[in-house]
């Protein structure tokens, strides 16, 4: 059972790290098995080798370890997991061990969890939508197959519900589709909500759920998204499926990374997060994509809570620099889902929707921006002092919130319905204000001028 030599000379135990002396031939980034006297086995990763010293990060933490009770064996290769369709329909913990009472997941092949960078010249630019059935997203910040787009939220907002609803409703126009949901640091209650929402998807064999809960080992969280993406790469590029990978909550992931960094005594960057946070996050998010001449795609949806709602906090900030857009939830939006559409953006949207859709989205956003200005002005000078046009913009914003944005959990709207609702909202504005939409399109979609009580 133990083909590799075991090392017992542990010099330091510090946070999640152990330092082993007397090793030879141990390579950087190797997977290590750590065995305790009690018989318990834990997993670890080599973070540094210095002559005969190896620094190992233990995923389950160093609780109950002593210098004498630990034996460490190095496997000679990076951590690999079995990959294949066996993951579909399963619920596992943050390290891929069954949590659903089933047998361990087996696969036809093993793949290293770190992955390898995808050659940018082999990528195919994302060009088709993932329709989520959520109006605000499908109309204004369309998810595009092969992109990465983050959900930014603040504590107390329903970002998990939204992510789970996207996971439950999303589809790729009838092509094979599945969801890999990686939960990092979620509470039991949150995890239960996610499981319930995704029940049907799971029953259909279209879901892999990896759950690292708030009470589970913290350092294991560093592994969970990598596992999810490795599973997804196989399902997508070998299995030919469109895979949506939801990573929630990335803030918990980054905190685990910070814990390791601090234990190693690394020079901290902003807010004590390690200087390599950007590269580390990129090594996850960049695993989305499509490959030329191959079926399948990976769309990555990281979900994160901004501490104190601060978008300049390193986690949302660095995420925003990597992802191709963001869906922002804000506490001051009084409907569900509380999406702040002006702060939200899908950079690749234009590749996946029709030009008329793009114009419509641009017009709605411009009008909402104008409505916000008008509202701010009304707070200063009073609504009665506003011009007629400004009042119409405020009416439009109200209409948009209730007809387009507001949506019940479990309610999935077809794109046509979403578009109809968007046009209904726009029809509250005077036609000369709709400068971003082609006039032929306006003629086709808007009621006649005189039926709307004219303009100025």
């Amino acid at each position, binding site marked *: 059972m133990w083909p590799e030599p075991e090392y017992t000379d542990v010099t330091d135990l510090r946070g999640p790290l152990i330092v082993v002396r007397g090793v030879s031939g141990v390579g950087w980034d190797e997977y290590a098995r750590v065995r305790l006297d009690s018989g318990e086995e834990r997993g670890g990763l080599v973070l540094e080798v210095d002559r005969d010293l190896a620094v190992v990060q233990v995923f389950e933490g160093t609780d109950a370890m002593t210098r004498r009770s630990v034996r460490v064996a190095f496997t000679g290769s990076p951590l690999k997991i079995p990959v294949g369709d066996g993951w579909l329909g399963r619920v596992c913990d943050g390290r891929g061990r069954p949590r659903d009472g089933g047998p361990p997941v087996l696969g036809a092949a093993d793949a290293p969890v770190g992955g390898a960078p995808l050659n940018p010249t082999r990528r195919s630019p994302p060009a088709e939508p993932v329709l989520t059935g959520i109006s605000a997203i499908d109309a204004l910040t369309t998810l595009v197959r092969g992109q990465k787009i983050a959900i930014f939220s603040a504590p107390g907002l329903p970002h998990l519900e939204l992510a789970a609803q996207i996971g439950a409703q999303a589809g790729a126009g009838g092509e094979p589709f599945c969801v890999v949901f990686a939960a990092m640091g979620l509470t039991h209650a949150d995890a239960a909500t996610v499981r319930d929402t995704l029940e049907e998807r799971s029953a259909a064999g279209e879901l892999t759920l990896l759950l690292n809960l708030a009470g589970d080992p913290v350092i294991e969280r560093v592994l969970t998204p990598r596992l999810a993406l490795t599973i997804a790469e196989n399902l997508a590029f070998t299995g030919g499926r469109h895979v949506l990978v939801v990573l929630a909550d990335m803030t918990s992931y980054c905190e685990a990374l910070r814990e390791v960094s601090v234990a190693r005594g690394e020079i901290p960057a902003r807010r004590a997060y390690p200087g390599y946070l950007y590269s580390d996050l990129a090594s996850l998010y960049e695993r989305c994509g499509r490959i030329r001449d191959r079926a399948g795609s990976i769309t990555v949806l990281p979900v994160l809570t901004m501490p104190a709602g601060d978008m300049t906090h390193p986690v949302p900030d660095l995420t925003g620099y990597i992802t191709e857009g*963001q869906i922002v939830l804000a506490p001051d939006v009084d409907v569900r889902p509380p999406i702040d559409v002006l702060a939200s953006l899908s950079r690749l949207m234009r590749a996946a929707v029709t030009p008329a859709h793009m114009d419509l989205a641009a017009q709605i956003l411009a009008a909402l921006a104008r409505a916000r200005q008008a509202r701010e002005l009304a707070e200063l000078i009073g609504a009665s002092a506003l011009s007629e046009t400004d009042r119409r913009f405020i009416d439009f914003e109200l209409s948009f919130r209730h007809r387009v944005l507001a949506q019940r959990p479990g309610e999935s709207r077809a794109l046509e319905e979403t578009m109809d609702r968007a046009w209904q909202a726009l029809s509250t504005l005077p036609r000369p204000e709709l400068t971003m939409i082609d006039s032929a399109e306006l003629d086709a979609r808007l009621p006649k001028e005189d039926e709307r009580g004219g303009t100025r």
Partner: protein
Amino acid sequence: MGVLTRVDGPLVEVCGLPEAGMFTLVGLGTAGIPGEVVAIRGDSATVQAYEYTGGLAPGDPAEAYGEPLSAPLGPHLLGGVFDGLLRPLTDAGTWLTAVRSAPRPKEWRFTPAVPQGHELGAGEPVGTVEGAGAVPYAVLTPVPGRVTAIRPPGRCAPDVPVASVGDRDITLCRRRPVRSPAPYRERLEELVPLVTGQRVVDLLLPVPRGGAAAVPGGFGTGKTVLLQQIAKWCDADVVVYVGCGERGNEMADVVAELAELTDPRTGGRLADRTVVIANTSNMPMMAREACVHTAMTVAEHFRDMGCDVVVIADSTSRWAEARREFASRHGELPAEEGYPADLASALAAFYERAGRVTTLGGRIGSVTVIGAVSPPGGDMTEPVTTLTQRFVRCLWSLDRDLAYSRHYPAVSWASSFARDADTLAGWYARHGIPGWGERRRRVASILAEADRLGLLAELVGAESLPAHERVALLAGRMLREGVLRQSALSAVDAFSAPERTAALTDGILAAIAECEAMAARGVPAEEIEGRDFSRLLRAKEQRAGPGAAGPG
């Protein structure tokens, strides 16, 4: 042979390689993963590795290659996509691994330019290569001397000598160290504008050929789109586009678009004048550090042939962060925000490689650098942003509020600068376009006045302002919507030639003058604001040019 003693991610320590000098290349492990010596302490050398170091262990062998980090320069560059060490990515596999097989060299058709026995100065051509992209590709001699041998016209491999100058063999492809600037005869003082085709830049914030510009902007402000537009449409001979630590999908998009688009000047593919260096954010971190130097080296290679070259680096912040990450692993004492203390000098040295010069061979060529800066949290006081501002002549600051209201390109006219604008106005005046400086001045003053009044209107409401001030607000809005806003997606408007920019601007300025005159005559502000300017504001979408579209 040396041995590895320590591996910590991209930082590797090696013992027993006394022949490895500072900033020379070392091969690590049996696979020979490339790395560069960055410090020597006693018998131990610290190496930054350019590939994933997983599996490297103390005791593994190391070998000194004896040359500084160098890039192969040759006729294969234009139209190609390369990694940070200038290895072709088009020949590599779908998933990138640390060890890659060398691509099969292609043969090129060489035509000699000089007979045997001819005396050549350094930097003069020995011959030309056909089919090497959109520019006439010259093979230059790096040393002066008599041509002792020259190859007849015909096809040859890149590593076969095509000529001998003195005792030096000249090949089509040669390696050049990336960290040292290529020599030139002298810098030129005269400033010549670079036309970018982006109105806000060409009209308000022009950059000269050989200048350096920085584009700071938080995420979502449209930095990458603006840079891509400039890469596509600026009137340079050669564009070197570096994706430094940025998104893979964006690189795929750039490559696909360049291959499809036609160069309006040559009629060929835009890709044929472009060298793409792609080091996406998930590719090895230290190659990100090298790639901006590699890009400069490629640019100087074409500059020496007499080309105007534009280097677009997206993003220099990722490059600075790679330096920070390595410095931190190396245990260097951090200066500001954890960046190493040499950040300022490294940035200065990078931007200083820009310039318009007389080459060694007597031609005129230029390297213009446009660097994106990604300030964390949009904080314009962070070190990379503040230091960069000191070393560039031109700053195009991207504004989050403009981007949120979907005003693209979101270049802020208020917080940007162009230190060469007045000198360039002189160039325009000397070249038959006397109105350029005056137009710029007028547009800038209208925008500044509208901004000032806009703040006031936010407090008291536009309705309570006097008519002439409401007209000033209207004027700012017309300039923003009719001139400065420019859609990257529009088939007609993505590129705006200088004449078109001038005509559009003059059309709007004339309408503004008319509105001002109306206000002076006592026409109520509501009536002026109520005029339908939509034809004028949409003139930029018309293929036939703005024409005489007045307010209808």
